[in-house]
């Protein structure tokens, strides 16, 4: 078995066994990190594989979270499966609608408009009655994972939540891996490599980009839903551009254009965050300085250092 596959399996085993040894606080922390990993994976599809740098991805994370918070009935628990499906669908739809405006536009423009649209979503949730304002929405009950009247697991129990999220992370990872090996996924990577050539080869590039944007948004909504499920509330800060910036940072930390890089990046980011906030309340200063140093001192950009420069296609011999 390849070395990287062994490493992955070990990591998976560690993750699976973690709640048995860790205290509740850490179980919840790692759950949070895994949710961020799903968020980072969703953005990786867009940035790392389609070449679209979005600075507004938190919008769809927030939409997923608010979907649960708004759909949850006041006096009883929501159904996990129904609300999850709805949240993913709504987030994907939101991304599709924004994508129609935004995907026509390239480069710097794209970065700016994705940020601007995310701000619009932020204001909708922050200012309007629909979004219930700056305090956000709290849910009185966690969703219930019932099928046919049978309660499958208890989402009030951190360990159950942990395993649910772990399974979700695996599912998203495997889904993206399959997607990227498919004809559609390879076309996306072609677009990232040379969009002009793809167009001249006959690919309707706009449609592919739009699809990628929508799928990425739907998956971000999935992560947002899980976040609201874990913490029991949704607030506008989930859509802030700090969130959008942080998830981009996760990709850089872990390595652009590799799926498990996104997961590693999420862990690395939270580790940095915890480390820095332990050292000082002004931890953002350290984070900012780290980001700046990261960009400046890695020659040829970050991709080369990660050693992933050669490996560009999922499915090539040396790959996961």
């Amino acid at each position: 078995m390849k070395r990287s596959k062994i490493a992955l399996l070990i990591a998976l085993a560690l993750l699976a066994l973690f709640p048995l040894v860790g205290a509740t606080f850490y179980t919840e922390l790692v759950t949070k990190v895994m949710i961020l990993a799903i968020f980072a994976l969703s953005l990786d599809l867009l940035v790392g594989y389609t070449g679209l740098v979005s600075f507004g991805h938190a919008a769809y994370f927030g939409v997923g979270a608010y979907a649960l918070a708004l759909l949850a009935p006041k006096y009883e628990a929501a159904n996990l499966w129904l609300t999850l499906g709805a949240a993913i669908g709504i987030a994907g739809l939101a991304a599709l609608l924004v994508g129609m405006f935004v995907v026509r536009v390239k480069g710097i423009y794209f970065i700016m408009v994705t940020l601007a649209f995310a701000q619009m979503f932020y204001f909708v949730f922050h200012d309007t009655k629909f979004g219930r304002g700056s305090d956000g929405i709290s849910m009185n009950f966690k969703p219930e994972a019932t099928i046919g009247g049978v309660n499958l697991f208890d989402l009030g129990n951190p360990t159950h939540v942990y395993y649910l999220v772990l399974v979700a992370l695996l599912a998203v990872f495997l889904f993206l891996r399959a997607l990227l090996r498919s004809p559609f996924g390879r076309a996306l990577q072609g677009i990232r490599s040379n969009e002009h050539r793809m167009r001249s080869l006959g690919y309707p590039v706009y449609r592919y980009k739009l699809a990628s944007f929508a799928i990425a948004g739907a998956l971000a909504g999935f992560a947002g839903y899980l976040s609201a499920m874990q913490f029991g509330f949704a607030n506008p800060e989930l859509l802030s551009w700090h969130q959008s910036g942080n998830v981009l940072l996760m990709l850089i930390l872990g390595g652009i254009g590799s799926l498990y890089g996104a997961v590693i990046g999420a862990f690395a980011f939270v580790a940095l965050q915890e480390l820095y906030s332990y050292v000082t309340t002004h931890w953002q200063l350290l984070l900012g300085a780290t980001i700046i140093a990261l960009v400046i001192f890695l020659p040829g950009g970050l991709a080369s250092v990660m050693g992933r420069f050669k490996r560009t296609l999922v499915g090539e011999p040396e790959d996961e």
Partner: protein
Amino acid sequence: MDFYSFLIQLLNGLQYGLLLFLVASGLTLIFGIMGIINLAHGSFYMVGAYMAFSLSVLTGNLFVAIVLGIVLSVALGVVLEWVLFSHLYKRDHLEQVLLTYGLILVFEELRSLIVGNDVHGVAVPAIFNWSIPLTETLSYPVYRLFMSAVCVLLAVALYLLIAKTRLGMMIRAGSSNREMVQSLGLNINLVYRLVFALGVALAAFAGMLAAPVSSVYPGMGTGVLIICFVVVVIGGIGSVWGALVAALLIGLADTFGKVLIPEAAGVTVYLVMAAVLLWRPEGLFRRV
């Protein structure tokens, strides 16, 4: 809305738009000429406002504070370009976005460390601290008229600089072909440094000018940045003229939007952006 209320909102909208133009012109110059997207541009606005506050407390005089502030921001621009931004010229957009995002974090925390997180007011200078009466109950503050006038003057000066001077020619030449300009013996690094410092100074000056009116608070940098992005997207990247038209449009839309539909206040600007993008995906006056 009666005529005088309308007039007041109109003047407010124009004043806001002109202020946005100052900030946005710096952003679009830096992008159009140096090819760098600078997320930290809003931070310069904030830095300017806080400088106006602390320097006027220190010196007791807002005008002196502003002059000092301009000098300091030019210096800041030169240092930043020299130390950080010169690394970004050949880098791709993602790296520029990340570095400047890190810079925002640094600026915000430094401000928090040095000056704290409080909201401050800055007194309007005595000369301008009166209002022109319009009706029995309504009047318009002279300071706001002064702000608009200054912005217009600066806009004209900017136009003259870019269109009529040798520096402006160098700036315009630099934007199309860096190597060619260099081979002509023009010091492209100096030109870039000056342009960047100019951009920083414009944003900081806008912050200083706005301080008495909008007060000085932590989130002001990011707030203005995103609106400026909308201005640049609508106006077209690299076009200073487009930035002016778009800024006025946004200033008016935002002001009237807040008055007419208070609940959707923050959203109006983005709706305008969406509408423009539908009609002209490349912005109104795309040049680059």
